[in-house]
């Protein structure tokens, strides 16, 4: 059950985290951009969550970033969410603390144009080389 992890998050971060439990095995936690690295580092270093992947999408409120952490001992997935402002979304990279985020953040950069500060190798990963540098396939800018 993800309940224990959510209670620990609330105990440590108080009102800076806001969570929603979809069912007993899935929960979604919303944080601000400033708390992004403290919370995601906590999920990896203390709760021993494994970063499975990151979903990003271009929504009306901005670029939404969702990092999915699998908590194996609880058989649950806790996802941490934040929203970045367009047109130049920027956030600190988790790769410097947790290598698993390396390719994952490169992919988000490739498709959504999010700049991850401190990333050791911020190159596009899947797009064709003949595309312009500011081409980001999943952006919905007019």
């Amino acid at each position, binding site marked *: 059950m993800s309940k224990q992890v959510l209670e620990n998050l609330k105990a440590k971060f108080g009102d800076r985290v806001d969570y929603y439990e979809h069912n007993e095995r899935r929960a979604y936690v919303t944080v601000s951009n400033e708390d992004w690295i403290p919370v995601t580092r906590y999920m990896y270093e203390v709760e021993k969550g494994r970063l499975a992947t990151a979903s990003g999408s271009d929504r009306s409120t901005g670029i939404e970033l969702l990092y999915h952490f699998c908590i194996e001992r609880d058989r649950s997935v806790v996802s941490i969410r934040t929203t970045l402002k367009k047109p130049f979304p920027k956030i600190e990279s988790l790769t410097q603390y947790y290598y698993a985020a390396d390719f994952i953040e490169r992919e988000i950069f490739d498709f959504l144009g999010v700049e991850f500060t401190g990333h050791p190798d911020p190159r596009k990963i899947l797009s*064709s*080389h*003949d*595309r312009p540098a500011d081409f980001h*396939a999943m952006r919905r800018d007019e």
Partner: protein
Amino acid sequence: MGATNWGFKKSLWVFHLNAGACNNCDIEVLDCLCPKFDVERFGIKLVGSVKHADVLLVSGSVPRKVVPELIEAYEQAPKPCAVVALGACGCTGGIFKDGYNFAGPVDKHIPVDAYVPGCPPRPEAIIGAIVKLIGTL
């Protein structure tokens, strides 16, 4: 099949080229070599270099990054060289033809001599396509 009664004028050397395929067609091609279908008894061999190829088996829907490499591989193959477009992706692009990264299908960039539809095509269909080309080379 009666294949051993045909007088094969030439044993065909085949080079398999994956131009953005999901692997299904590719493993069916490798399956042709294996004991159940055993295409080597017809003298058909999978070669490691495009410079030795008589037949190019191209699978995949050709995403943008692959286009220059596909054309270069075709130009390096000694002529005459037959090209077989494999699978739904190779023939028309399949379900990927509306994708934003789609730059194919194969016959947009290189001339194709045979099309093998299917997703994936069965090994028997692939062998049949290669054998049909024998008379044309």
